[in-house]
């Protein structure tokens, strides 16, 4: 193993007079007076959020306006701080998305408990829950900090879908190739 003992040089006489340090300190100060600021004036200037950022969890619609969540409750199960509460509900048979069968009746994420770990997004088999770019939340009461279904869809909006698995299933069923 390459071991290198760290160097301990005693201070020179000049260094012991504090003078070089004072001079270099002033030099540093002067240098910083003329350089560009590195801070961000936060509420006015916003930091750039990279792709795949784990912000506030949201629910999303697919491009056809169907709510993607089918209330399988896998995110509720995996959530380490138990921030998610889902009440599953059936989709009425006269609904255009009736073939999906289930959707959440109520979907609550307690943002006072959420730790933004992103496990819900990772396990979701429908790509319905997404941690998007919003990183700050505030409220005056505890109740305000619990995001309900309406608010979650407001935050989430619509995201593109690569698979349209439910539409494919319906098409297959109508063509007589459905799995039963």
């Amino acid at each position: 193993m390459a071991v290198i003992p760290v160097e301990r040089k005693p201070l020179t006489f000049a260094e012991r007079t504090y003078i070089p340090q004072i001079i270099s300190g002033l030099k540093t100060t002067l240098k910083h007076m003329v350089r560009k600021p590195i801070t961000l004036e936060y509420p006015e200037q916003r930091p750039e959020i990279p792709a795949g950022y784990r912000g506030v969890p949201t629910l999303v619609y697919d491009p056809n306006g169907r709510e993607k969540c089918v209330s399988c409750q896998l995110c509720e199960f995996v959530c380490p701080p138990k921030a998610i509460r889902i009440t599953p509900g059936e989709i009425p048979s006269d609904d255009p998305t009736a073939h999906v069968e289930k959707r959440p009746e109520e979907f609550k994420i307690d943002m006072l408990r959420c730790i933004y770990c992103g496990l819900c997004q990772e396990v979701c088999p429908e790509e319905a829950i997404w941690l998007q770019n919003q990183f700050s939340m505030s409220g005056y009461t505890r109740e305000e900090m619990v995001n309900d279904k309406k608010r979650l869809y407001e935050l989430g909006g619509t995201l593109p879908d690569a698979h349209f698995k439910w539409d494919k299933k319906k098409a297959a069923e109508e063509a007589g190739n459905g799995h039963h």
Partner: protein
Amino acid sequence: MATEYAFPDNAAKTADASQEFQTEKMSVAMGPSHPSTHGVLRLNLDLDGEIVTKCDPVLGYLHRGDEKIAENMTYNQFVPYTDRLDYLAPLANNVAYAIAVEKLANLEVPARCQAIRVICCELARISSHLLGLGAFAMDVGAWTVFMYQFTEREKLYKLFEELTGARFTTSYTRIGGVSRDMPEGWTDRVLAFCDQFLPILDEMLEMLTRNKIFTDRTVDVGIITKAEAIAYGLTGPNARGSGVTVDLRKDRPYSGYEQYEFDVPVGTKGDCYDRYLCRGEEMKQSVRIVRQAIKNMPAGDYYAKDAVRIFAPPKAKVLTSMEELINNFMIVTEGPLMPAGEVYFEAENPKGALGFFVISKGGGVPWRMKIRSPSFCNLSILPKVCQNNLLSDVVAILGSLDFVMGECDR
């Protein structure tokens, strides 16, 4: 015959007075909310004047019961909790935990995944040492380094954010891999960071190493001899500062550390100054490792593809294949399937050797998990090293030991 004069002897009088008026020892509770106890450490100090005669650390103000929490959740669910151990180097904790559980499953992750993890660990080491250095310098009266290191850490956080999706609580590793591959061009940005970081690090170190005020506060203060360091089970830079050549990356290489060339800096004297010098040099060595890892970055997968019952299948497959969908549900609800057995794994974290002792009775939930946190073991020497030092030196010693209470109390 000479006359004998009796002069009033002031010095003797003072000495007598000190015998007459016995001073009492004073007890001072330093912390738990003292700025230089770096979190919630409380020290009950007995002072004789300014000399510490007894130092009694009180721990547990940040106890969250992480070890018990681990027993109630699957292996993957515990990853976010490892962020909160040594919260200055969450990535290194993630990696240590994942390797421990993989050792239990006897699982070998692909070379690319190992290299990503090495980069993560070393960047976390730089980030942790930077803060340790800055806080130490601030404790002994130097502000500038503190501001400089936060500028550098911000750049590191930007890199972490891009890689993991979060700046602070990264939760990056999974059992059998990492949560996602490196984004496009990320390695270039890491290299660019390394290039600009070294001159700034030199500038930062120059401000302290040759600074009379700093050396006055640290040289020959809080000396830990080599024998003491071994006896008290110190690890990491604290042990190396005392001249103990222990570095798990060299002694028991994991995650492919044996491929990388780097040196282990050790101190000669074991005082606060040596520990500071070791940390400074270690950051330079970390940059070396990161550069090598990026240069030789292997192609391939970022997770163990053959471990189908451990690592959840990719999203595209979950969405299109019924078998993968079922597998996804099984891995999430049951947890990654582990054999029964016990395993202990130690990784060289920034603060020292972080160990996970996992007992499994099979299934996806650990039966018992013991966390050996380096800060806790490093603090055990505090009563010994603080004794007969000045009260103001206790601050320097605490800063040089560079502990973090999140890990200490778990």
